[in-house]
């Protein structure tokens, strides 16, 4: 009995395993897509651009090492009716099986973003290989174009993007968005969607004046003649704002800071203001968040919000010889900073209300918190009410430290 049972089991196991192991993939047969780009064509087909890693160039081994001539990735574009069909088409020329397992970045081209991504958003969350930790960028122009970039400090472009986004904590100038956050905002009524905006970077760029705000992004690069051979360099130029599923406008870098402040994602940044006592010079501060931003909601005839922001500022640079490092002067400075920031914040909120009519800040969540049932909330129709809402901002700024110098240096002459 024991022997027969054993033989039966062995036979079964062998029969099964004779078919092979279904899911086994060998490492070297996988084409690892590091970044994916989606562009919309006129006939509503999409061009999928994949950045496939070349292991021998990117993998640093004892023998060989990463040779830096030529790109470490293979860039390939295919046009197809849907994303995954494009993979099949890619596999007609790429000899490794393309896979999204190690994908880190997703680029959405301007055409698709302006048309509306609702047709393709399901693509992004249904297939198991797509992960919700993907970073999303909206590209000005064609994603395929911007993906031609070659980083100088990193061999792997996807790492470059990842690190770039991680660094955003230091400047607050662009929002880190992964697919999870994107989907959450997409599917909820409380907040409109936004994503970092990527453009091409030409090194002779002028810095933008913060007091002007406005659409100063996206104009570079058009005038110069496109260089095919020179690798493209990219730059994040602010935020692309969605209403529903399509892009309706963008915020520049400084406006994005405001967005981060209100949504509580702001960590630190440097701020330069005109010196209040001497119009020709400037003072620079390092701003950090003191307390989380608090938004209060009261329902009167129109929704009324009070936004309280607490910031700490440390003086970083004084361009003239006025000694601002006394408590009285600090008090004076505090109010100046507060009013300047308040002005900025109000401007951005106003822009969102009038130009975009999209609540990118998430005020809707505060309204929702006061509801008792989701049916009530869905009947309230917040997106229609946002443009008419009344928002008042209170800035609280504290100057805590002045760096390692008290009075600014003075020449004796």
């Amino acid at each position, binding site marked *: 009995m024991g022997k027969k049972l054993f033989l039966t089991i062995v036979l079964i196991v062998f029969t099964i395993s004779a078919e092979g192991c279904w899911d086994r993939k060998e490492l070297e047969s996988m084409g690892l897509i590091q970044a994916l780009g989606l562009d919309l064509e006129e006939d509503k087909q999409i061009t999928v651009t994949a950045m496939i890693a070349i292991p021998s160039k990117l993998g640093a081994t004892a023998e060989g090492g990463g040779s830096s001539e030529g790109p470490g990735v293979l860039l390939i574009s295919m046009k197809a009716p849907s994303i995954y069909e494009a993979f099949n088409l890619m596999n007609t020329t790429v000899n490794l099986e393309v896979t999204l397992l190690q994908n880190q970045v997703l680029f959405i081209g301007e055409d698709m973003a302006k048309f509306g991504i609702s047709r393709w958003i399901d693509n992004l969350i249904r297939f198991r290989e797509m992960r919700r930790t993907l970073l999303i960028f909206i590209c000005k122009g064609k994603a395929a174009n911007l993906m031609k970039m070659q980083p100088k400090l990193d061999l792997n472009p996807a790492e470059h993007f990842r690190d770039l986004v991680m660094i955003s904590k230091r400047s607050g100038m662009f929002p880190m968005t992964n697919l*999870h956050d994107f989907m959450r905002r997409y599917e909820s009524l409380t907040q409109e969607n936004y994503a970092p905006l990527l453009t091409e970077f030409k090194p002779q760029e002028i810095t933008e004046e913060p007091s002007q705000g406005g659409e100063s992004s996206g104009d570079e690069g058009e005038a110069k003649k496109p260089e095919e051979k020179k690798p493209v360099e990219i730059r994040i130029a602010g935020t692309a704002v969605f209403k529903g599923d399509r892009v309706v406008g963008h915020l520049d870098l400084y406006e994005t800071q405001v967005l981060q402040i209100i949504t509580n994602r702001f960590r630190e940044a440097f701020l330069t203001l005109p010196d209040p006592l001497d119009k020709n010079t400037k003072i620079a501060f390092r701003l950090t968040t003191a307390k989380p931003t608090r938004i209060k909601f009261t329902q009167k005839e129109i929704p009324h919000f009070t936004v309280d922001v607490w910031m700490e500022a440390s003086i970083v640079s004084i361009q003239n010889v006025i000694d601002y490092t006394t408590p009285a002067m600090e008090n004076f400075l505090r109010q100046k900073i507060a009013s300047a920031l308040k002005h900025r914040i109000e401007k951005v909120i106003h822009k969102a209300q009038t130009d975009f009519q999209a609540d990118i800040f998430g005020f809707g*969540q505060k309204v929702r918190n006061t509801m*008792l049932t989701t049916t009530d909330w869905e009947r309230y129709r917040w997106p229609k009410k946002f443009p008419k809402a009344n928002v008042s901002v209170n800035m609280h700024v504290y100057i805590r430290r002045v760096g390692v110098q008290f009075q600014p240096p003075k020449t004796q002459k």
Partner: protein
Amino acid sequence: MHQTGTKEMMMMKNDMMIGHREALTLLVTLMSGQVFLSMPRNMALLGDTAGWLIVLLSGIFSLIGYYFLASLLKEYPGLDILQISQSLCGKYLGTLFSIIFFLFFLSISSLMLRQFAESFIISILPNTPISIVCFFFLFLLVYGAIQGIETLTRVAWFFGPYLLLAFIVTIGFSMPYADLQLLLPILGKGPLTLLKHSVFHISLFSNVILLGVIAPKIREQDKVSRIGLYSLILAIVINTLVTATVLITFNYTSTSKLVFPIFQLTRLITLGEFIQRTEAIFVFLWFFTAAILMGGMFYGTVISFSHSFGITNYRPLVFAMAILIFTISLFPSSMTETVDLDAFIVSKYYPLVTFGIPLLLWIVSRLKKKGINTNG
């Protein structure tokens, strides 16, 4: 068909006893396993932001339903629910009840088998045929059932702390993505809807009936009802916490569309740059919970079948039962059909079996007692 009395049962079960801690862990795992399937999504579909409240409320209602089972077990120590039904209602009605239990366990086992196998295929083994995944599970079920429920409870206790730890880790690491405000509005779709769904969904905790089947084997007979109570409470806490965590990480709109919410939750876990995409480690947690859950239910199937027909040694039945369960698990033609069937169609009848039958028996026993008192 003959009645099996206490002594014979004890003799044939080889004198192995289950400790109370082991039984507790087994029951908790039985009732918490479904969080790995589509349960949080179903709750979000029914109750929007108050999905967790539905879980909590149905837990409280099931506590009420459990009271009848507990008092029956207390009145008849050393007997399991099948024997109690036979002694209270006579041979034929008792056999009918046993067959009903058998059908209940059978349907749970096959639907769970199908759902868990699907969950593994969808998430980590996309190309493997379902029969292979089912075969592996069935192997474990058969092996476990042949060795008896005591072994399974020991394994459950052995893995218990680690499963709990893994749960906590999953919930803890999702905190960076969590926003407690997403639980508001607190009443979801409205209090009436909530109540209605809670009552109809006490099937979530219907697996507690296995306590009725393994009660005679528990070493400390006086603790039996407490084991059920504590395990129910713990299971309620775990289920509610997990549902709430899913809701605060993904808004209710997204949760109601996710196929396996916990899987998506584990996919989000990131710790710095190094620990990313580590959801494959959670396969262990998931697999162990699934195997223990199905092992317990399979045992219930075999025992209730053998009891209905008076078979004393259930071990040869195990193979046949396994094949039966496998066949039935393949009836639904697709995964969506399975989820639909399990969550909305068949599960309506579960509470009738697991809470209704003990209630009935309790009433009968009360009537009989009254009858004895008035007559004697």
